[in-house]
């Protein structure tokens, strides 16, 4: 990346951050206007008060919990796309991840948190196995990436509820153990931070680790550069003697595994697998794609965007506890609306130039 490019990039990032705040304010403003149905001045003063009562430590903690699966899927997706493969099957891999975690936990014993952890590990391994098949199809057999990705989603939507029905006699699983919260004695007493940081799901911390690690790996290691080169300039990478397709296999398998982990985390944070309708994943894989577009292919940016979606998602429950009259059905649509607003504002992202093209080395 030349100096000029990075300058431009930095400027974009500044615009992005301002935009992020504006989008959040606009979303809150619209919600406020709808909810209170009073003149704007009053909304502003009342609004600030309400804002304080909405953004409680519990709300922030729950938003992070909600953001974790989206973040994981997003990081996987951005790695694949950085290397030149558009993994549009994230939603499908998340569905498989959630289901594999549920089934594994169920068969391992379903007794406690240990079983939930075992379920998560098995789930990641199995989704990575599926991702291997997907990668072979995309890279070896040059399948159309968009169509095959959609196919993964449909297979998830069909086969997962089928298998759930075979196992449990219903598309939903019975109650399963989660991983619980990690509470640090003493520190968890600190106001606000205590609940957000020291009384939090360990999976949220795992997600933070993954996000930071993914950032360091992508921008500070040799292999990270190879990944970027595979997407930006595969010919150069090939000339340098690195197997482009091998790098792409690695990222696609990694992206499938991370999306699977995202699904497993989603399951561990809820009480059972839900296979009706769009399944419990319910569009979070798609939100993941938008999160990394919005975060401009930067793992930390993607995590921030996911947190925004998580926060919007949790507003619903927050309104209910505050007895604010609003249809939960309509409020539940807010994340999808935010996605459209965000995409409209940030449709142009730095797409790696060789995304979607199968690479064939001239031998």
């Amino acid at each position, binding site marked *: 990346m030349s100096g000029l490019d990075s300058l431009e990039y930095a400027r974009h990032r500044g615009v992005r951050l301002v935009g992020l705040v504006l989008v959040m304010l606009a979303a809150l403003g619209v919600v406020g206007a709808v909810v209170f149905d009073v003149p704007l001045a009053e909304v502003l003063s009342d609004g600030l008060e309400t804002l304080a009562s909405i953004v409680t430590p519990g709300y922030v903690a729950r938003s992070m919990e909600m953001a974790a699966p989206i973040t994981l899927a997003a990081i996987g997706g951005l790695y694949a796309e950085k290397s030149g493969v558009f993994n549009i099957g994230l939603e499908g891999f998340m569905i498989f991840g959630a289901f594999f975690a549920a089934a594994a936990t169920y068969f391992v014993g379903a007794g406690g948190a240990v079983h939930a952890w075992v379920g998560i590990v098995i789930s990641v391994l199995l989704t990575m196995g599926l991702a291997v098949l997907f990668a072979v199809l995309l890279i070896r057999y*040059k399948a159309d990436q968009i169509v095959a990705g959609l196919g993964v989603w449909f297979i998830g939507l069909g086969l997962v509820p089928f298998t759930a029905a075979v196992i449990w006699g219903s598309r939903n699983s019975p109650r399963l153990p989660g991983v619980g919260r990690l509470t640090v004695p003493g520190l968890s007493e600190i106001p606000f931070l205590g609940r957000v940081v020291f009384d939090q799901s360990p999976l949220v911390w795992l997600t933070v680790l993954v996000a930071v690690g993914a950032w360091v790996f992508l921008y500070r290691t040799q292999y990270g550069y190879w990944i970027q080169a595979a997407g930006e300039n595969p010919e150069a990478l090939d000339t340098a003697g690195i197997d482009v397709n091998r790098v792409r296999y690695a990222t696609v398998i990694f992206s499938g595994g991370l999306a699977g982990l995202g699904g497993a985390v989603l399951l561990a944070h809820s009480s059972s697998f839900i296979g009706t309708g769009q399944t419990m994943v319910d569009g979070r894989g798609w939100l993941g794609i938008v999160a990394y577009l919005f975060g401009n292919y930067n793992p930390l940016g993607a995590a921030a965007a996911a947190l925004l979606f998580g926060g919007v998602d949790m507003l619903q429950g927050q309104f209910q506890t505050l007895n604010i009259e609003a249809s939960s059905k309509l409020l539940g649509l807010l994340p*999808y609306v935010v996605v459209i607003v965000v995409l409209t504002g940030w449709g142009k992202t730095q797409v790696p130039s060789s995304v979607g093209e199968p690479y064939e080395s001239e031998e």
Partner: protein
Amino acid sequence: MSSADQSGPRSMADRVAGRLLQATVLERLGIALASVTTAILIGLVIVAAAGYNPILFLNNLIVGALGSERILARTLRLSTFFILTGVAVAIAFRAGVFNIGVQGQFVVGGLFCTVSILWTAPFLPTGTVGGIGLMLIGTVAAAVGGGLYGALPGVLKAYADANEIITTIMLNFIAIGVVSWLLTNPLRAEGSTNVQTERLPDYVGLPPIVFGDSGFSVIGLVLTLALVAVVAIAMTRTGIGYDMVTSGYQAGAAVYSGVDAKRTIVATMTFSGAVAGLASAVYVIMFQGRFIEPASIHTYGYDAIAVSLLAANNPLGVLPAGLLFGGLNSSSSYIQTYSDVPVQLIDGIVGIVIVFVAAPELFRMAAKRAGLGGDDR
């Protein structure tokens, strides 16, 4: 294929379209057949692995699609919906735009159709004449509703460069949520415990001619075939259709020859959405006679993607592909009633069909290895 245009999904669309266009009709047909056969074989293996009898399942699959007059009517009814939604998808894909939002456009179109008929019925005479008038109003309203809902992501793509794959999927979720809310609250039928609108008047509906009262009318099928013919002609023989297809296959050339790319995108999405709306009009008028909880409507709009891909995005090819999907889904109703194999398997098979359709190379290599074809590509 030009590699000059590198704008992500758009150029990807160019490549898909290019590849599909390059393939000969015969080759496409072979790949489509191979995809479907392989997917069904995998389905049978899954059935066996889950502990059911695969032979019985295969038998149920065939009997459930063609077994009796009543079943055949159901297959044809479902095929009608798959053909119409499949054509809606094909219009967009052919023009290089990914409209994954047909389900949402279907839901919005169906709501427009139902509400327009319910609201205008008191002002029109009852009986056959009024019925035909109301059906025309409902059909136009459905096309307008679906068209507008399709135009929205088109405008966002053309003028704000928002990726239409994601926006249309989000708009599906939004359409289902909002319409579901409308049917739960202001538009719910009085005294009904179900989430649904009032029934359409009795005189609104298509008379069953060959098959008994089965929610299927030959008139609906004939109108569908007529629409497919109109779309096929419009895509190949008219100026706007020509512009759409050239924009899809050769964006650069289209712009150079004076086609307004942005307006073509919006027009394509509007056209595609309008056809999705028409599909819904047939669904409401011929079959449901009211509008129901949109989350419980079968995902015609999503399956339509598979239908269109199987047909190589050719409006005429959508006919056999739509019939196949009608048969598969008809079987799934049969299997639900007469067998204990969970019906979601059919959706899974549809997904597997899509994956295989995406990878023609797989079958080419398989064919080469098996010594078939012989044409070295």
